[in-house]
């Protein structure tokens, strides 16, 4: 089953100009007993080599689903992609054959999952699971693959890699397991890494180490990185730009410092205000009222309107488009000016 194959690296004419990954008007829906859950409703974003895009949102905002669609690991059915394009190095992956996409996975685009304990196979040694990347994609022998696995474990700074290569996932600590996930993603030096809440399951002190490692390796290999998170704190240090998602749409899209200094969407603003701050000690913490919408019954107009402090009639009827705010920035709010101006 060793497949030594070269996927066509022939770039399309404008591949040089195009971003590494560009998602255009992506829609994903899930067919459930209670109707169609619209998880992603027209998402656009792009990442260049060496760049970090943070996709921010609550659970159910569609941030993970859109990433899984890019990765091609959604279960279809129940999922369906009725519309959209996912251009990777200029080619639409949604039009590729299953086999073509498989060869991109792991080799060109790799993914890091949230819970390393459940995401690693419990009955196979980590050495086997790391080495499998080389054995399948590069046709290496069992022995060579093991040597490569040790090398990888060294690179993500797992102590005593040579002794631990035969150990099983449950024998490692949480932080070490996540390092193994990162090592697995890095194995074939992909062009793009998608990290889905890579540090959420970890202790705070370990979180910082893992993020640091990830950022360092990204710079070293000049990879694009999509960082999916609900944690604004994680984003600030590592991201170049941020896309904030709500109910399957991007509501704000901006370079990282712009968002922190001047949010242009009431939802982003609410998120920022709900971070505890030392200078506000003693005051009541702000919380966005209400709950995220049920995806089978997304409110009409702006999906955020039932929870928005600034909502007017127009918000209940018209879906706001992403208005350009300055140069590299957009806000899907009818009142973005007012939000900025306050």
């Amino acid at each position, binding site marked *: 089953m060793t497949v030594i194959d070269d996927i066509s690296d022939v770039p399309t004419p404008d591949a040089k100009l195009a971003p590494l990954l560009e998602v255009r008007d992506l829609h*994903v829906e*899930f067919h*459930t*007993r*209670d109707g169609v*859950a619209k*998880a992603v409703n027209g998402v656009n974003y792009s990442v260049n080599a060496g760049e970090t895009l943070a996709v921010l949102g609550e*659970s*159910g905002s*569609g*941030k*993970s*689903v859109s990433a*899984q669609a890019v990765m091609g690991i*959604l279960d279809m059915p*129940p*999922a369906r992609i009725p519309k959209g394009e996912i251009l990777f190095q200029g080619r639409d992956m949604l039009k590729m054959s299953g086999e073509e996409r498989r060869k991109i996975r792991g080799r060109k685009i790799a993914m890091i999952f*949230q819970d390393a304990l459940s995401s690693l196979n419990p009955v196979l040694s980590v050495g086997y699971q790391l080495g499998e990347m080389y054995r399948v994609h590069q046709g290496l022998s069992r022995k060579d693959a093991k040597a490569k696995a040790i090398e990888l474990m060294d690179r993500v700074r797992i102590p005593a890699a040579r002794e631990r290569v035969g150990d099983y996932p449950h024998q490692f600590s949480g932080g070490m397991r996540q390092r193994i996930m990162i090592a697995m993603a890095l194995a074939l030096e992909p062009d793009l890494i998608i990290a*889905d809440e890579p540090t959420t399951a970890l202790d705070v002190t370990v979180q910082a180490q893992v993020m640091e490692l990830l950022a360092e390796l990204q710079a070293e290999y000049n990879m694009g990185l999509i960082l999916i998170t609900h944690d604004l704190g994680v984003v600030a240090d590592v991201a170049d730009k941020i896309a904030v998602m709500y109910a399957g749409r991007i509501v704000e899209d901006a370079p990282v410092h712009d968002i922190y200094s001047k949010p242009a969407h009431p939802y982003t603003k609410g998120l920022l205000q709900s971070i505890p701050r030392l200078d506000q000690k003693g005051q009541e913490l702000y919380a966005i009222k209400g*709950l*995220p*919408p*049920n*995806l*089978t*019954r997304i409110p009409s107009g702006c999906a955020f309107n039932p929870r928005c402090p600034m909502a007017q009639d127009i918000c209940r009827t018209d879906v706001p488009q992403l208005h350009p705010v300055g140069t590299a920035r957009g806000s899907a709010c009818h009142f973005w000016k007012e939000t900025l101006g306050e």
Partner: protein
Amino acid sequence: MPENTDAVILDGVPAVAPDGAPVPVDKRDKPRSLWNDAWYDLSRKPIFYISALVILFLIVISIWPGLIASQDPLQCNLIDSQNGPSSGHWFGFDQQGCDVYTRTVYGARASVEVGIFSTLGVAVLGAVLGGLSGYFGGWLDSIISRVSDIFFGIPILLGGVVFLSAVKGGSVLTVSTFIILLGWPQLARIARGAVITAKEQDYVLAAKALGAGHGRILLRHIAPNALAPVIVWSTIALGTFISLEATLSFLGVGLKPPAVSWGIDISAAAEQIRNAPHMLLWPAGALSVTVLAFILLGDAVRDALDPKLR
């Protein structure tokens, strides 16, 4: 069982959002308890109604067999031996010249009695021993677990032959006693596991922290939550116990004539299958439908109580 298809979906809302996080319930959806939820789920399943109706019918027939059979199951005439269907005797006659239909109707009682007695006994004994062993742990757990290991060491059919031939059994009571004796460890294991899981839940810890006693915690907090697997397992087991009784009769250690039971009739008919297949069809069919009904009911209840298993 086409209901088993949609995996991630719980009633009302997607149980798990596509990215793995729970979706908050919409304000329009009232919160429902596990049992309410289960009932809501069951009430929409035809399989549940069909199997429940079959079982209900069976129970009524075993109490008042005269409702649908006008003849006497013991009034037989050798002249009719192995005769096929005729008017007034649509199912034909058996070896002894008894009316197959009447005997099939009257045979329900013994099977239902064995099923209910042994299931009740196994459920009570198993749930109490397993529950206590799971809740208190320690030496009590060790003793009960070792004892149940011993009973597990004897395959139930083998134990049945040995035990029932020794006590010269042959009544509903002895067969049920035997099934309880060898059947309880399996339920005890299930109850033990369920109680251990429930014991570690936060609400139980909270009750403990508030100073609730063992009795109160066990009855008010753990029992309602550990009950589901016990009920499901017992429902399915009831069917298999009925089947076991028939097999024991076949081996000559179960119920014995002049008792009227499916097991007796099936084993008598099975050996005569070459001469008169019709004798086998009705009692065997009745027994199989009964076993099937209990299994389906148990399956439906389990699916309703534990959406994860779908």
